[in-house]
């Protein structure tokens, strides 16, 4: 290969420049956000199924998994995650139920908390998926591409709320090494991506407003307006906010007249599967990024060091007998 020094510099400079180009194509904070006002939620106790849950299931039923059976266990383990026989389960998150209403008693008061993906500003699930199956959209929602999801469930493990749920027996892993790698497809709320892309509200928001009118639990709007409204309520009504600081910020703000410390304590006491920890650090921001800055800086320092070392070495006369010894 005939690589001249000039060509080498051209290629190297092009590579480094291409790495440093900053694009403002998409903001990390999404366009929309949601308020979920716990103080207004009655859990639709007079109905067979909460409206938000029903609307979500109706909206997404065509996307629910249809696993091929029999399902192979995750070798060498003898287990696999199959919710297909529990499709009617509505009291928890499953691949067939992307929102549920958590009932809780805090200091003698019954409260109802609609639970679904928080749609983080810097989502660990999106950043951590090794197959790029999760993406963060400009609308603020994070979305799983079920066509390339391997179902390894890493997204669930690194989600501070363990939101994504796995169904075995479906997905791309069946076409590759079904016995040895992958475990199905992960499912979770994507904020009704097809609806919000058309400028419509998510199904749960509409269903709740249909029932409670101006007292609706859900408010979906431009992110700036939602944050302003939540902070206004906090100031004027002394309400508590959850989701603005947790995990570095999210597109979902819970507001409540009961503190989230108390709510999370009650969830822990009941050993609930889905909790609401108040102190949620975003590991990307607090741990990985400081090291990332060292990676970039040391890369540049290394280039500088290489240039100095090469120039010094070139200027140094070498004796022929330096290459041989007895």
């Amino acid at each position: 290969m005939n690589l001249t020094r000039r060509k080498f510099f051209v290629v190297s400079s092009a590579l480094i420049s291409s790495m440093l180009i900053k694009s403002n194509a998409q903001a990390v904070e999404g366009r929309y956000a949601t308020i979920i006002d716990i103080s207004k939620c009655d859990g639709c106790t007079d109905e067979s199924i909460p409206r938000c849950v029903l609307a979500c299931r109706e909206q997404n039923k065509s996307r629910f998994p249809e696993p091929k059976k029999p399902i192979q266990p995750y070798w060498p383990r003898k287990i696999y995650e199959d919710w297909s026989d529990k499709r009617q389960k509505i009291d928890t998150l499953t691949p067939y139920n992307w929102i549920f209403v958590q009932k809780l008693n805090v200091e003698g008061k019954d409260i109802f908390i609609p639970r679904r993906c928080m749609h983080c500003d810097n989502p660990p699930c999106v950043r951590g998926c090794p197959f790029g199956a999760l993406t963060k959209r400009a609308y603020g929602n994070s979305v799983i591409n079920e066509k390339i999801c391997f179902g390894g469930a890493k997204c669930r493990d690194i989600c501070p709320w363990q939101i994504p749920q796995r169904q075995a027996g479906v997905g791309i892993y069946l076409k590759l090494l079904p016995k040895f790698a992958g475990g199905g497809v992960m499912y979770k709320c994507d904020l009704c991506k097809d609806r919000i892309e058309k400028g419509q509200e998510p199904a749960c928001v509409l269903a709740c407003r249909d029932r409670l009118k101006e007292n609706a639990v859900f408010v979906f709007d431009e992110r700036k307006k939602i944050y302003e409204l939540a902070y206004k309520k906090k100031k004027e009504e002394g309400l508590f906010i959850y989701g603005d600081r947790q995990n570095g910020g999210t597109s979902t703000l819970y507001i409540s007249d009961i503190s989230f410390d108390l709510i999370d304590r009650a969830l822990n006491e009941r050993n609930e599967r889905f909790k609401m920890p108040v102190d949620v650090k975003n590991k990307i921001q607090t741990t990985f990024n400081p090291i990332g800055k060292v990676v970039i800086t040391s890369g540049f320092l290394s280039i500088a060091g290489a240039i100095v070392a090469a120039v010094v070495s070139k200027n140094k006369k070498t004796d022929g007998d330096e290459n041989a010894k007895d």
Partner: protein
Amino acid sequence: MPKIKRHTIIEILEHWVLALSGIILLFSGLGCLPLFKRYYITEIPGFAWTGDFNTVTTVHYIASIFFVMVVFFHMFYHGIKGEFGLLPKKGDIKNSIKVLAAMIGLGKEPPSDKYLPEQRIAYAGIGFIIILLTITGIIKVLKNLEWVVLSPGSEAVNTVIHTLSGFVFMIAFIIHVAVVICFKSNWPLLKSMFTGWIDEEYVKHRHARWYEELKGKISEN
């Protein structure tokens, strides 16, 4: 026995820092996949930490500091010095087949330069994978830092390339180590990767062209 210098201290350091950081990156990279828990690695005494994605990612990031430093140093140091002896030359594929055949006792090895033709091809191949891993890895770091903002599609493509090239790197790494260990004719090269020196007899026999070149230089002095 008379010896000839094959590697400078800088080259030895480059090789071993890349190798060690590469091993840590491969292991922690596999740990970033949801495999270790499933395959009971986390249950090996002392390996419980490998089940925590945040810990393995932190280890991956730390090892990448050294990996990135070596990659850039190598490219610029040898690039500026005009040392391109490890880049493939015309006829390397044909001669590589002869070298590999000779390793298993078929035919005679063709006379070589300082580097064997199959070493030059392997260098180009592994080098390409390393560059791919470094670039996609740096993009991941910059994206997490929010210094570059990628479209969802490009983020996914970059992630998949990083993961898949990691697998290719692992295969190339295993082949590289296996070829060194399994063929006795390569053992002096392993020793020289620690000491920097190689027996003159070995050079005369296996790197005849390089030997001729060195002999010319030495007699000139």
